[in-house]
């Protein structure tokens, strides 16, 4: 008897299904709480949840719920249980059975690079889409120099692109002190001897040296080719800063998303920052040219993924369609951004402390701290 084969599917391959809106059936075998909290989503994805421990003796309950003839991807937290269940399915005669390489941990850590544009002076702008967590980060490359904005904890994908382009990292910036993920900014800055820029009002308690992001003090990438213009836009945090690149692109951090707006409560000062958030969204951003392409630091729903997986939207169009920009009554705005908010991201207080340098958890703990969705928007589920 030959052993039935099951195939490992990488996070990159799953990403192809999501971006292409292709059909994929997922059997998620984590426990119910973990599944309810956070799962793989996409317009072509259908998933069901049966915990692996209910399938140890017999695989029949799962077989009954699988669609006939369709490939099945089994998913668990780390990999082992999904491989076990996938093998049971294959032994029972199912064809095209896959399991997710690295499980949801691997899924949380995968970054998909998407080229956004060629810049006017010959540079390039890339967006890195962290599919599993909804985090977005950016790289600007010009004349052999590069800058990274809102870096994820995992820096391999950036290092790969830097090597491919033969570029040296000179600047690393975070739009704000992140509460949903651990910034890779400090690690990258140290590795490449680059400058690490942070908004000073968010960085009052940090334990390491950094360069202050100041409005009007532009950052140059590549021999005065690409100008990155910081603008002070408080609200999600008191220091939140946006960047305008090449007069075309507005990196809005966690202030403005494609289908929602940032929440002001993750540093415990929601009531204090409501006014700042409103001022930024309804006055400061309003004065910017409508043609700017908004490139946020997060997305919450697969519906925000555009062509080739990019997350972007024109500022003028967002002013027409984003529900967060249509709350004209101030009191209603205050209620929307302070009440009935989604749960806060996991371990967000420890994540903030880690980003300040006050905590130094080991890699395994950092990974655990980041498990789950980002939940930085007002309208997240």
């Amino acid at each position, binding site marked *: 008897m030959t052993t039935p084969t099951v195939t490992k599917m990488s996070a990159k391959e799953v990403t192809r299904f999501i971006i292409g809106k292709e059909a994929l059936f997922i059997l998620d075998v984590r426990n119910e709480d973990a599944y309810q909290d956070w799962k793989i989503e996409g317009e072509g994805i259908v998933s069901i949840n049966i*915990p692996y*421990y209910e399938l140890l003796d017999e695989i029949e309950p799962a077989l009954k719920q699988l669609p006939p003839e369709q490939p099945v991807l089994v998913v668990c937290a780390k990999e*082992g*249980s999904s491989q076990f269940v996938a093998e049971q399915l294959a032994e029972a005669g199912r064809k095209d059975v896959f399991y997710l390489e690295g499980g949801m941990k691997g899924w949380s850590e995968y970054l998909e690079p998407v080229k956004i544009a060629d810049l006017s002076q010959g540079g390039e702008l890339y967006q890195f889409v962290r599919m599993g967590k909804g985090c977005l980060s950016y790289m600007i490359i010009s004349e052999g120099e590069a800058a990274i904005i809102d870096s994820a904890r995992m820096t391999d994908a950036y290092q790969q692109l830097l090597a491919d382009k033969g570029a040296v990292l000179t600047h690393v910036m975070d739009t704000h002190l992140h509460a949903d993920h651990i910034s890779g900014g400090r690690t990258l800055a140290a590795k490449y001897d680059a400058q690490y820029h942070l908004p000073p009002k968010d960085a009052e308690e940090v334990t390491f040296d950094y360069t202050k992001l100041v409005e009007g003090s532009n950052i140059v990438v590549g021999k005065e080719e690409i100008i990155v213009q910081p603008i002070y836009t408080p609200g999600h945090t008191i220091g939140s800063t946006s960047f305008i690149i090449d007069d075309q692109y507005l990196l809005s951090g966690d202030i403005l998303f494609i289908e929602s707006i940032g929440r002001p409560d993750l540093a415990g000062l929601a009531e204090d920052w409501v006014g700042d958030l409103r001022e930024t969204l309804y006055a400061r951003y309003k004065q910017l040219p409508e043609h700017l392409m908004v490139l946020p630091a997060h997305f919450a729903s697969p519906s925000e993924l555009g062509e080739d997986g990019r997350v972007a939207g024109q500022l003028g169009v967002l002013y027409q369609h984003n529900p967060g920009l249509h709350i004209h009554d101030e009191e209603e705005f205050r209620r929307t951004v302070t009440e009935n908010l989604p749960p806060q991201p996991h371990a967000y207080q420890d994540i903030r402390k880690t980003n300040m340098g006050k905590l130094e958890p080991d890699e395994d703990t950092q990974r655990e701290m980041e498990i789950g969705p980002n939940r930085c928007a007002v309208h997240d589920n």
Partner: protein
Amino acid sequence: MNHDKLVDATGLACPLPIVRTKKAMNELQSGQVLEVHATDKGSKNDLSAWAKSTGHELVSDTEENGVYKFWIKKG
């Protein structure tokens, strides 16, 4: 806490801690207590969810130096 049987699942990854626990549980009588040691971080949530779904009771659990200990009373 007293136990009637001990499962050492330290160093084992999912699904083995639950596979071993389940097998050991089959050898116990209702009301007897199984002690389980594991190092897999996911084992806490999975074992308590498993116990709940199978009618066993997770009586107590501790964590010390990365080793999780569970006491499960057979239902």
